[in-house]
């Protein structure tokens, strides 16, 4: 069914015109995970409240730095939205290096499924520096109850093999991780 954002007789508002254009939310600063026991998923800055009873097209550009023995995960907390989610990312077990490449995982997970992406730095690097990417795009449909949607991230496999400094993993912020979304229904 066609989505009619504009209706005859209604005023055109700035908010309606903005609804024609993708909205963007960015991760403000690097989100850091340090230490072997730090595996709890935490909320990122990618948090927003969509319209109720609506359909959106979305595209998440996910950027991270981690050693090859560390798996970064992300998932959506969206109690009042159903995602049709399509992801592409480096498979666990990939080698280190910016242009070395990796087996790719391409799948259609549930919204709460923590997809597991492989780091691209040599194991034992104290502060990983390679900026790797992962992708999550598709649509989501909201119910008639308002609720926020939150992107969560976590890191698994961090250890202290760089002792005395603990291994680090970073979800990249600033000019990096960002979500674009547009209402389409």
């Amino acid at each position, binding site marked *: 069914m066609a989505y009619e954002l504009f209706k005859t007789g209604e005023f*055109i*508002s*700035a*908010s309606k*015109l*903005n609804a*024609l*254009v*993708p*909205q*963007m*939310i*960015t991760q*403000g600063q690097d989100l850091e995970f340090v230490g072997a026991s730090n595996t709890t998923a935490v*909320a990122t*800055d*990618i*948090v*927003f*409240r969509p319209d109720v009873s609506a359909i959106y097209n979305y*595209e998440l*550009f996910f*950027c991270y730095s981690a050693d090859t023995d560390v798996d970064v995960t992300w998932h959506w*907390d*969206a*109690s009042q939205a159903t995602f049709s989610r399509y992801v*592409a*990312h*480096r498979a666990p077990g990939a080698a280190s290096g*910016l*242009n*070395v*490449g*990796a*087996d*790719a995982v391409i799948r259609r997970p549930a919204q709460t499924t923590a997809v597991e992406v492989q780091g691209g730095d040599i194991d034992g690097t104290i502060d990983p520096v390679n*900026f*790797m*990417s*992962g*992708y999550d795009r598709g649509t989501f449909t909201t119910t008639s109850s308002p*609720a*926020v*949607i*939150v992107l969560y991230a976590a890191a698994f496999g961090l250890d202290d093999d760089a002792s005395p400094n603990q291994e680090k993993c970073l979800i*990249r912020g600033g*000019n*990096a991780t*960002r979500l*674009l979304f547009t209402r389409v229904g």
Partner: protein
Amino acid sequence: MAETVQIQKSRTQLFHAGRALTAKDLNLVGPNIITQGSDAVYTSSTTPTATNITFTPDVSATYYYELFIAYTANGTPDFGWRWNAPEALFCRYTLSMIEGAAAATGTPATEPGADIIFRRPANATFIPAGGTGDTANGLPCAFDRGTFATTATSSAITLECAQFTSNAAATRLRADTTLIYQRIS
């Protein structure tokens, strides 16, 4: 849980209440498209040269973009690309096959596939895309998507390409290589 997280206030906005609406404003709503138009051939050089994908964006603006690259090359020279954008900061996400990807065989071509490079490189970082043979069969592609933000100084943005490794055999940027871009704030 989710309701306790902080909703980001600084979403992008293209239209603002109280400002006059112009035809130029409304034309910003749709995406723009630029195509390469003809094959560009690169031999025995890794110096990136300008393509037909060139344009001058608005100043002090943010854009979403998506570049579809079609190319052919043998497994040794491969293909490489970057952006020349002195007055724009790209948030660039790339997907490409590793150097020396296996050649396609048969008619129609059977693609053996290759490891994939998932990166978040800087504007001018020269990214490789693996050649699968300089033939009409097995036309590979690469992706470069994300956003870019321009400064207050007007300046062109140009896609530049070359061989990733210098070789006498030709590397080609194919004619239907296409950039789609849309202003979002």
